[in-house]
């Protein structure tokens, strides 16, 4: 029953708190406190909190695995986790501080890229809640529907007409899935990658980098050329793995919560291929980043989010 338990746990928690794993208050917008973004406006930067959630998802799965001392994660432990108060879970499942600051850095880079490209936007701070993508991906349609109506309402309350997203999963879910579930969904959705411009073209010959296309950007949204153009404008020499663009290969991340060791085996398969092309791997999705990073030591590679390279 552990997988059903896991799905129920994440669904219930999302309905209750807005997020699928236990998180401390303010974790999703702390990165933006140094800015003074408007909280309302036609163009809204909506992160869907996926980057910010990564450290907490990671720590929860580590905690669960430790609880059952098994490779596959002790989801029976979820039964306990559900009844334990959030702050205690937070203490038990200590997120990696480096990962938290990485996620804040990425979001800061993205905000700066947008500002540099003279794009005016507002940000919802405490209302920048989760998009519900994991509930959708695991098949919990009912709770997903309840949650996304909440998200849509918050976005509408801020007078949003256009949404800027920062990761492929949130982009896809808002653009292609929300309209199927929400009557009158009328928001225009674009990834920040489609909006930013690189003006300080650097001709410096930088190290070659290998692009790991996100499955969702490449196959779900046909967003393939954009990251390449941005990186080459910045002066990087782009190397392509054999399985790239529309046949890009998954990092294994989406089943990390359900089946960690299988997820890792897939990440290794992918990293092996990437590492033969270059030791600098560029990702554009937090799930790809974390899953590939976990195996990067075995292959002498470093993984970077595209925003940090621009």
């Amino acid at each position, binding site marked *: *029953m*552990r*997988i*059903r338990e896991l*799905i129920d746990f994440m669904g219930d928690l999302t309905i209750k708190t807005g997020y699928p794993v236990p998180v401390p208050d303010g974790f999703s917008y702390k990165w933006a406190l140094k800015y003074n973004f408007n909280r309302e406006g036609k163009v809204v930067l909506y992160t869907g909190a996926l980057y910010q959630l990564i450290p907490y998802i990671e720590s929860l799965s580590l905690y669960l695995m430790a609880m059952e001392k098994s*490779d*596959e994660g002790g989801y029976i432990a979820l039964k306990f986790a559900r009844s334990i108060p959030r702050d205690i879970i937070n203490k038990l499942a200590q997120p990696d501080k480096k990962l938290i600051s990485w996620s804040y850095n990425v979001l800061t880079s993205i905000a700066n890229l947008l500002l540099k490209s003279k794009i005016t936007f507002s940000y919802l701070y405490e209302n920048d809640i989760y998009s519900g993508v994991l509930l959708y*991906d*695991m*098949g*919990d*349609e*009912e709770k997903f529907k309840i949650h996304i109506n909440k998200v849509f309402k918050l976005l509408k309350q801020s007078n949003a007409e256009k949404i800027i997203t920062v990761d492929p999963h949130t982009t896809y879910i808002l653009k292609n899935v929300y309209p199927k579930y929400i009557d009158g969904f009328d928001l225009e959705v674009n990834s920040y990658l489609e909006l930013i411009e690189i003006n300080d073209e650097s001709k410096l010959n930088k190290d070659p980098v290998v692009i790991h296309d996100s*499955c*969702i950007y490449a*196959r*779900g949204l046909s967003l393939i050329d954009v990251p390449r153009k941005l990186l080459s404008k910045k002066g990087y020499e782009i190397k392509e793995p*054999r*399985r790239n663009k*529309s*046949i*890009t*290969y*998954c990092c*294994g*991340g*989406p*089943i990390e919560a*359900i*089946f960690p*060791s*299988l997820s890792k*085996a*897939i990440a290794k*398969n*992918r990293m092996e291929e990437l590492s033969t092309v270059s030791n600098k791997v560029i990702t554009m999705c937090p799930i790809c980043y974390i899953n590939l990073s976990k195996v990067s030591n075995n292959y002498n590679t470093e993984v970077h989010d595209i925003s940090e390279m621009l």
Partner: protein
Amino acid sequence: MDYLENIIVDISETLKNKDFREALESSVPMSEKRVLDFLNLHKDIPKLAKEVEEIKNKVLSNIDYYIEMAMESLKSINGNPHYAETKDDALDILDKIIGERNKIILSKSMVAEEVGIREHLEEVGKEVWETDLGQLLIQLEKGKPMHAIAPAIHMTVNDVINLVKNKLNIELKGNETPQQIVAKIRPFLREKFVNADVGISGANAISADSGSIFLIENEGNIRLVTTLPPLHIAIAGIEKIVPTLIDAFKVVLVQSSYAGLYPPTYVSMVSGPSSTGDIGHRRVYGAHGPPEMHLILLNNGRKEAIKNDILRDQLRCIRCGNCQIFCPVWDITANKWGGKVYGGPMGVGWTAITEGIEKGAELSELCLGCMRCDAACPVEIPLSSLIHKLKNIYVKPK
């Protein structure tokens, strides 16, 4: 433990099996590249695949009509058509046809696996041999096929040597090349071909207008299975029927292309029993091939699936196995991520059709949602969204 957890435990064990990993790693990337390179050169094939997609949709919208037509056509050429509603019905029909005959040879057929023909015949005391080399290895291993086209894809050369040595008592030193192993098995199987009373095959396509079945292969065993024994029985799912003989040939070309087997070494077209009119201008049956030929058309959930919005598209499947090779999960697990017979992306849908929607729903939870299978499928089965809909059923059973 529920069904899904058992699958997870099994896959976890597999992850520790180095030989299994090595066998897949040494074949999967090559297979994928072969198909992609081929399709790059042969732009006409994806167009033909589009035609096959339409042909299949046409049949699904009028399945009873085409079943009837195929059966009538086969009768008109002196073949014996049968319709089996369930797996048990198929076995009853088979038992009646086979009767007291004892020595039976099989050519690889997923539907034969689905029905459990080999196990059943062994149980009732027949001598049964698989003749496709990969499938023979599966028989010796007592396992299940690990890929739609290449059932023993998970075995290393060493695994094969050990199996053949221990189970067939064929003398092998342990350092033989694949070529040498094949040469050793060949005489063993030769004897089975020659002495068999019954040959059982599948069918890759069936043309309703002529009652012909089409079979694709590289080994040459299917030719022997369908012609040497005095009785040929073919078994196939009803979704293998297409309207015309030309349509069937299109399926053959598309399937072999996406399976990386283009051009297939052999394509057999069987239209009823063997006959000759050479003596006295009278038609007599059983010249060199079998005088008796049967075709069992199996439903086993297919008609119900046509009416099911989630599963219907899966019935267009031509079993090329390309979605399996393309799938990052399958690349690690092979058909361990699957039901009794069918695994990988196509296997989720096929398990739902043939073993019950709940089983397919349980399997669906291991899908990454990466959509790579969608890019692989020649007949545009929306595999990832089909699997996603099954996840909804897993969470909230209907």
